[in-house]
C-alpha cells in the first residue's frame, strides 16, 4: 500500500526526511532523527519565504489593513480579515448592527465549511482509507469526493456572496460591510444548506468509523470560549490549564519565539509550554456550545474523549464542526433581515487594537499599535499553524517510537498523516505551480 522496504531493527538509527509534505497548505518539510531507538530530533520546517505582512501594514489605516491581511492566505482569508476588523472596532469602540454581526458569523461559517470540507475529504481522508492521494481515492470512492466538493462549493458560495469574492474577499469594512445581501440572495442558498447538513451528518458518521492509529496523550489545549455560542469571533481565550484572558490579551498568556530551521515563529505559554489549537481544542473547551445537531452527532460517535487525547481524531472534530457550521449557517439565513445600518461610522484613535478569533485551524491573534490618525505603527499577526508547530513536533517525537518497526515508507506515511491531522496552513496566497519540466536537448 505505502511501500514495503526492508524493515530495519527497532533500536537502530533511522532518518525520516520528507522534503515536501504533501496535502498541506504551503511548503514545509519533515525531519525526524532516531538514534539508538530514541528520537533525537523532530522538526516540521516551514520554509516558505517570510512575507513581511507585519511590515506591509505599517502606515496603513484599518480599512487598508483589512484588504492587505486578506491576502495572507487563499484558504482562510476571512480569519485574517475578521480578526483585524474586530481589533480595530474594539479600539474605536464601534458597535455594529446586530444583523451585521449575524452576517459576519455566516461569513466565517462559510470559510469553516470550505476549509473543513477540503481537508476532511481531499487532504486527510485518503490517509485513513489507505490511498496515497485524493486522486487514487477518487477512483474508488467517487461519491465521497462529490460530497466533499458539494460542501466546499457551498462554503465558497457563502464567502463569495458576503465577501464579494471567495478568495481574498473585499466587502468587510470597519463598522460593517460595504454591501449587505438582499434576503432573496441568502434564501437562494437554502436548498444547498439542507443538502449540506445531510452531507455533513454523513461525514461525521464516515470519519467516526475510520481506523485510527493509537496515540493517546494529554496536552494543553487553547481556544476561545463564549458563554452562549460556539466560538467564531467572540469569547475569551481559555486553556485547559485554567488560562482565561480577554480576546485582545493573547500576549498576556503566550509569546512568540524563533526556532532554527523555520521561517515561522513558534509560540509558547509565557512559562514555555506548548499547546494545541483547532477543532479538537474547541470541542474540548467549548463543545457544550455546539449547535444541537452537531452535539447530537458528536454524542452518537462516542468519541468526545478520543478527540481530546488522540490528534488523529481531529478529523472527527473537524467533521462535527463542519456540521455545526452548516446548521448554524442555515439558522442565520432563516433569521436574516437587512441591517438597519450596513456600516456605522468610526473615529480613529490612538492605542492598541488587538483581538483573537477562531480560524478553521485554530486561534488567530492580531495586534496593531495605532496613532491618532488611525495609521498602524506596529503589528503582530500570530496564525494558528505557528502556534501549533511545537505541538506537532512534540507529537512527532512521541509517536515515532511506535512506527519504528514499520517499513520506512509506511512509517513516513504515518508521520505525515500525523502532521496532516493538524491541517497546517503554511501557504502564501500565491498559487503558483511548480512545473519543473526537464528540457530535452534541441527543444
Amino acid at each position: 500500500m505505502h511501500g514495503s522496504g526492508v524493515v530495519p531493527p527497532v533500536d537502530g538509527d533511522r532518518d525520516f526526511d520528507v522534503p515536501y509534505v504533501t496535502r498541506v497548505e504551503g511548503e514545509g518539510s519533515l525531519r525526524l532523527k532516531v538514534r539508538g531507538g530514541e528520537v533525537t530530533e523532530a522538526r516540521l520546517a516551514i520554509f516558505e519565504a517570510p512575507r513581511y505582512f507585519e511590515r506591509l501594514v505599517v502606515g496603513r489605516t484599518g480599512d487598508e489593513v483589512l484588504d492587505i491581511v486578506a491576502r495572507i492566505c487563499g484558504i482562510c482569508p476571512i480569519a485574517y480579515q475578521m480578526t483585524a476588523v474586530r481589533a480595530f472596532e474594539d479600539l474605536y469602540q464601534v458597535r455594529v448592527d446586530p444583523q451585521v454581526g449575524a452576517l459576519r458569523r455566516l461569513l466565517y461559517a462559510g470559510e469553516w465549511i470550505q476549509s473543513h470540507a477540503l481537508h476532511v475529504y481531499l487532504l486527510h481522508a485518503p490517509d485513513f482509507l489507505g490511498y496515497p492521494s485524493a486522486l487514487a481515492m477518487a477512483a474508488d470512492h467517487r461519491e465521497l469526493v462529490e460530497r466533499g466538493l458539494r460542501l466546499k462549493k457551498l462554503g465558497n458560495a457563502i464567502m463569495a456572496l458576503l465577501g464579494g469574492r471567495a478568495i481574498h474577499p473585499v466587502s468587510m469594512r470597519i463598522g460593517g460591510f460595504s454591501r449587505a445581501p438582499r434576503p432573496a440572495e441568502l434564501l437562494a442558498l437554502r436548498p444547498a444548506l439542507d443538502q449540506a447538513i445531510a452531507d455533513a451528518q454523513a461525514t461525521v458518521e464516515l470519519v467516526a468509523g475510520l481506523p485510527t492509529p493509537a496515540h493517546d496523550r494529554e496536552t494543553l489545549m487553547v481556544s476561545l470560549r463564549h458563554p452562549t455560542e460556539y466560538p467564531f469571533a467572540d469569547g475569551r481565550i481559555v486553556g485547559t490549564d485554567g488560562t482565561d484572558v480577554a480576546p485582545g490579551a493573547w500576549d498576556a498568556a503566550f509569546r512568540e519565539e524563533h526556532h532554527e530551521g523555520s521561517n515561522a515563529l513558534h509560540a509558547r505559554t509565557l512559562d514555555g509550554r506548548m499547546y494545541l489549537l483547532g477543532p479538537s481544542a474547541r470541542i474540548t473547551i467549548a463543545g457544550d456550545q455546539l449547535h444541537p445537531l452537531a452535539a447530537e452527532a458528536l454524542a452518537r460517535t462516542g468519541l468526545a474523549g478520543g478527540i481530546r487525547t488522540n490528534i488523529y481524531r481531529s478529523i472527527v472534530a473537524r467533521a462535527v464542526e463542519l456540521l455545526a457550521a452548516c446548521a448554524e449557517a442555515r439558522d442565520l439565513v432563516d433569521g436574516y433581515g437587512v441591517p438597519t445600518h450596513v456600516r456605522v461610522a468610526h473615529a480613529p484613535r490612538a492605542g492598541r487594537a488587538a483581538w483573537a478569533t477562531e480560524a478553521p485551524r485554530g486561534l488567530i491573534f492580531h495586534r496593531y499599535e495605532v496613532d491618532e490618525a488611525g495609521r498602524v505603527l506596529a503589528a503582530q499577526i500570530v496564525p494558528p499553524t505557528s502556534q501549533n508547530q511545537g505541538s506537532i513536533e512534540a507529537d512527532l517525537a512521541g509517536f515515532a517510537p511506535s512506527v519504528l518497526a514499520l517499513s520506512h515508507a509506511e512509517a513516513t506515511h504515518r508521520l505525515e498523516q500525523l502532521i496532516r491531522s493538524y491541517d497546517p496552513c503554511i501557504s502564501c496566497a500565491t498559487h503558483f505551480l511548480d512545473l519543473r519540466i526537464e528540457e530535452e536537448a534541441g527543444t
Partner: protein
Amino acid sequence: MSRPVLVLACGTPDRGDDAAALDAVALLDLLEPQARGRATIRVVGQLGIEHLAERPDGAAVIVVDAAVGLRPGTVRFVPFAGLAGGARSPVPRSSHELPIPEVVGIAEILGGPLDGGLLVVGGSDFGLGHPLSPAVEAAIPELADQLAHAIEDAAGRRGPGGTG
C-alpha cells in the same frame, strides 16, 4: 459549428508574476478578438476541481497560469493527456488546493476525459504588490499568442464525445 472552449485564467493581479495569465487574457481581448470570441474565459484565483468538473458539455479546457521550475518568461503548453502520474507531471509543491495532476485526474473521474491542457509561463517574482518581472512582462505577448492558437486548435478539434 466550433467546439466550446473554456479558458481558466489562474492568478491574482497584485502578486507579481502571478498576474501573468490575467494580463495575457486582457491582451487577447485587444489583439486576438476572433480567438477571444471562441472561448468562455473565467478568472479563478486557485484552480479547483470544480472549475474543471463543471465545464460546459463537450468543452475543451485551457488552464493559463504562472509556474516556477521553468526559466522565467518561458512559455509552454502541457496537454492534460498523460499529466496525471506522467513523468512530466508538475512536482506536487504548489499551494493550489491539490497538486495540478490530482485536480485534473479527479475532474476526469467526475466529468470524463479532459481535452486541452496547461499553458504556463515561467515566473520568478510573486511578491505582494510587485509588478510583473521583466522576463514575464516581455513574454505576455507570446503567452497571449499561444493562448489564441490553443483556443483555435481546441475549437476546431472534435471532443472526446465526437460532438465537435
